[in-house]
């Protein structure tokens, strides 16, 4: 108990420790972002999408927008939103920016990250976010369109790069994540 008081223990246990990693991504403005150190000192809500996903991923993004609005109304500041793509092959920074912009997303506290497959997989696998190729189709002119089967998840990262909670993406427990964010402030 005494050690807990001295160390400012949080009620949320550490689920994954990302503080030792350092992977470079590009955000929607093609600026380099070192993950997770770029967000040190901030609470981070991280979600995972790919822009060719028509159904689930827009739900996840919409949930993140709603969460951002809720936190703002509750006066909770300094929460960074990060969205990482499963599909850096197609989801370039420009594509991610268009995906977000048409949804009216404010990039002030929200980065959409795209990186190499190796860096992407390193981050995803470290937090048990799995994905694999799913069904595919061909357009009339023979272009291959593939879909991705992926986990439906978002994570809460504390100010020191430690994951403190996992939640749904398209099915988000707003009450729980807001309470958990408040406990990290």
């Amino acid at each position, binding site marked *: 108990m005494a050690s807990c008081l001295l160390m400012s223990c949080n009620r949320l246990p550490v689920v994954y420790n990302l503080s030792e990693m350092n992977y470079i991504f590009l955000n929607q403005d093609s600026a380099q972002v070192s993950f997770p150190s770029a967000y040190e000192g901030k609470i981070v809500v991280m979600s995972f999408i790919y822009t*060719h996903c028509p*159904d689930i991923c*827009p739900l996840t993004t919409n949930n993140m927008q709603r969460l951002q609005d809720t936190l703002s109304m509750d006066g909770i500041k300094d929460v960074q939103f990060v969205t990482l793509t499963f599909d850096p092959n197609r989801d370039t920074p420009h*594509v991610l920016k268009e995906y977000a912009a*048409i949804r009216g997303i404010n990039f002030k506290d929200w980065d959409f990250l795209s990186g190499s497959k190796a860096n992407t997989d390193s981050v995803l696998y470290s937090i048990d976010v799995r994905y694999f190729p799913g069904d595919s189709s061909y*357009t*009339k002119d023979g272009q291959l369109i593939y879909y991705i089967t992926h986990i*439906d998840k978002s994570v809460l990262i504390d100010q020191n790069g430690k994951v403190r909670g996992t939640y749904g993406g*398209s099915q988000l427990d707003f009450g729980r994540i807001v309470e958990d964010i408040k406990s990290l402030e």
Partner: protein
Amino acid sequence: MLMLLFVSSFTFQISASGHRRQVSGIMVEKAYVRTAAKGMTSAAYFKTVNNSDTADTLYDVKADFTDMAMLHETFRDNGMVGMKEVDFVAVPARDSIEFKPGGYHVMLMNVKEALKTGMNVELELLFKHGGTIKVDAIVKE
């Protein structure tokens, strides 16, 4: 007089702000399409109500505002989500089928122009018995 009333109940088209169409006992309502930037992927959702005594089948969708439209279904399995193409969706007699997020949807690939909130687009739904039903869908997130 009675015959006229009988025919009209099954073949008239209702157009209330373009959001509801009924042809041959099949009614399509609450149609909407997700926002999407030009060249990207969107999805269409709607409710199909079968007011007839005959089951029907939705087997295709056409959308001029996009390169390809396909019937799809989202599935969930042990925390993973994915989607698969479906060849058709049956609409039982005196019943309804809803295309909604997380379930059946029309996948719209490579939209030709940006779909912005508030725009209206047209879908053509092809039914085995009901024929082609044109529906106005509103764009929203």
